[in-house]
């Protein structure tokens, strides 16, 4: 059975379409990553699944219940961690978890048992009696996760669960989320590619409200790894450097698909090289040196989310990606 089924889900705001006819399914016990740049519609989609926002069109069902027709049944089965953990800063951690537990329908001994359990599970036992307002960002996030799983929900929806954490905490959180899979079906959103690689089994890539690709993480990695992007800095030995000549020469190296001039200064030029396969660094270095230039630097560049969009989605996303790159510059 599909734990989550989304069909042609759409959300229009007064001036813009935030989510545009998205359809996908999530199997029970899976971790699915929602990948996309900020403002892509990840949060809106999640809010529709949690019954916080009603969809403009389309349907979404969670555990077989429609979000519009049976919101109470859906809410009982969902644990939700918004981007900023919804904490009452004047409460103690334990008090807060007790309040959320009661909201979700727990009471008495069962509630006490669940509080003990999530405190242990989320490693917050040592701050149980502390005010939430006094906790560090990392602890607040963990309390946020604890409240999401307090009622042992079938589905967990986590909006950027690792945002703002330090690297150690990020790893801990990822491991924790992975350990929850199986019992829970998890959707998490992120704009960090490696997060999806490490935690998720399936990935949904969303951009400008549209689902541009859905794939298993394995396939995504293969597609991304199939190409490599390198940055090469070349300097002329005597005086100025003829950058077009360098570009031409580098383009002749086997496997190179594209050479772009990134920057040119006096006698130096920085080139970005996209190659189809394998390690070309040796070939490139030899080509530069044998042509009588100096090789100042040669390093692989990180594959950015925009580049995956480029590869996965072709023309439409290309313009979108360039636009967003332009915004940033």
């Amino acid at each position, binding site marked *: 059975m599909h734990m989550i089924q989304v069909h042609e889900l759409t959300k229009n705001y007064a001036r813009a379409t935030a989510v545009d006819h998205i359809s996908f399914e999530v199997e029970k016990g899976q971790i699915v990553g929602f990948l996309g740049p900020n403002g892509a519609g990840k949060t809106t989609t999640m809010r529709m699944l*949690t*019954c916080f*926002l009603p969809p403009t069109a389309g349907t979404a069902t969670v555990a077989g219940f429609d979000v519009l027709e049976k919101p109470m049944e859906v*809410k009982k089965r969902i644990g939700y961690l918004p981007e900023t953990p*919804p904490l009452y800063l004047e409460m103690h951690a334990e008090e807060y978890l007790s309040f959320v537990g009661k909201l979700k329908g727990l009471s008495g001994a069962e509630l006490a048992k669940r509080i003990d359990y999530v405190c242990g599970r989320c490693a917050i036992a040592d701050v149980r009696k502390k005010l939430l307002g006094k906790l560090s960002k990392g602890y607040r996030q963990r309390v946020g996760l604890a409240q999401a799983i307090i009622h042992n929900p079938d589905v967990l929806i986590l909006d950027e669960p690792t945002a703002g954490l330090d690297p150690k905490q990020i790893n801990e959180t990822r491991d924790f989320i992975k350990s929850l899979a199986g019992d829970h079906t998890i959707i998490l959103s992120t704009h960090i590619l490696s997060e999806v690689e490490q935690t998720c089994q399936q990935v949904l890539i969303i951009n400008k409200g549209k689902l541009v690709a859905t794939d298993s993480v394995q396939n995504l990695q293969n597609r991304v790894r199939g190409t490599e992007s390198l940055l090469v800095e070349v300097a002329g030995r005597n005086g100025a450097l003829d950058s077009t000549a360098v570009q031409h020469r580098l383009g002749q190296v086997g496997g190179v698909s594209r050479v772009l001039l990134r920057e040119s200064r006096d006698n130096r030029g920085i080139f970005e090289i996209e190659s189809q396969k394998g390690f070309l660094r040796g070939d490139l270095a030899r080509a530069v040196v044998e042509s009588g230039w100096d090789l100042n630097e040669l390093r692989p560049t990180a594959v950015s989310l925009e580049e995956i969009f480029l590869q996965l989605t072709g023309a439409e996303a290309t313009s979108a990606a360039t636009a967003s790159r332009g915004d940033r510059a």
Partner: protein
Amino acid sequence: MRNVWIIFRKEMRTYFVSPIAYFLLAMFALVSAFFFGIYLRGFIEYGMETQMTGQTAPMNLNEQVIRPLLSNASVLGLFFIPMITMRLFAEEKRNGTIELLTTSPIRDVEIVLGKWLAALGLYVCMLLFPALNFVFLFKYGNPDWKPVVIGFLGLLLQVGGLLAIGMFISTLTKNQIIAAALTFSLFVALWVISAVSEFNTASWAQAVSYTSIVTHLEPFERGMIDSKDAVFYLSMIFLGLFLSLRSMESLRWGS
């Protein structure tokens, strides 16, 4: 009902762990004690005066002390209630905790009712101090208790309405200060609006001044339950709760 109780307890707790509740309690106690002193002194001096001049003027604790005190409490409420209601929703919206509430298996109406009852609960706590003053009147005098009870009932009805309206305004913004300022301005407008009919006897002026939130309390202060005035406050409560509910819904459709 269980959910209303959960929200009520949480809100009460929030009031009493923050300084706001204690500030309100202290201020309300101080101001009402101040007026209690003034009216009581006036009453005693009046009594001595009539004795000295040998006249036998009617002395009535209810009319001369309790009624003006209740009337004072009602006006004081206009100043204190915005401070009670401003945080009800604005704070949840600012902290993002509204998302926790609305994604939990609990109905909007339960949230609204729980919050309103908690605000009313805090006000009842505030009323305990003037009520404490009244204890002395009963100990050393013999006022009629019925107008007192009815007066407090009227006060609760009035405050219930004001709290509901204030709560609605709190749903409109993330900013508590804006919520308080808007609420206070509206209350003052609804307070002074009764003056319209003082200079104008046309039927529209009567209708406008009917919306004043203070004048409807007068029968209660005299110990009478006028169904017209009770209905006025009850519909104000209903309107405030209803608008809060609708505003919560529109929060989702609009944001």
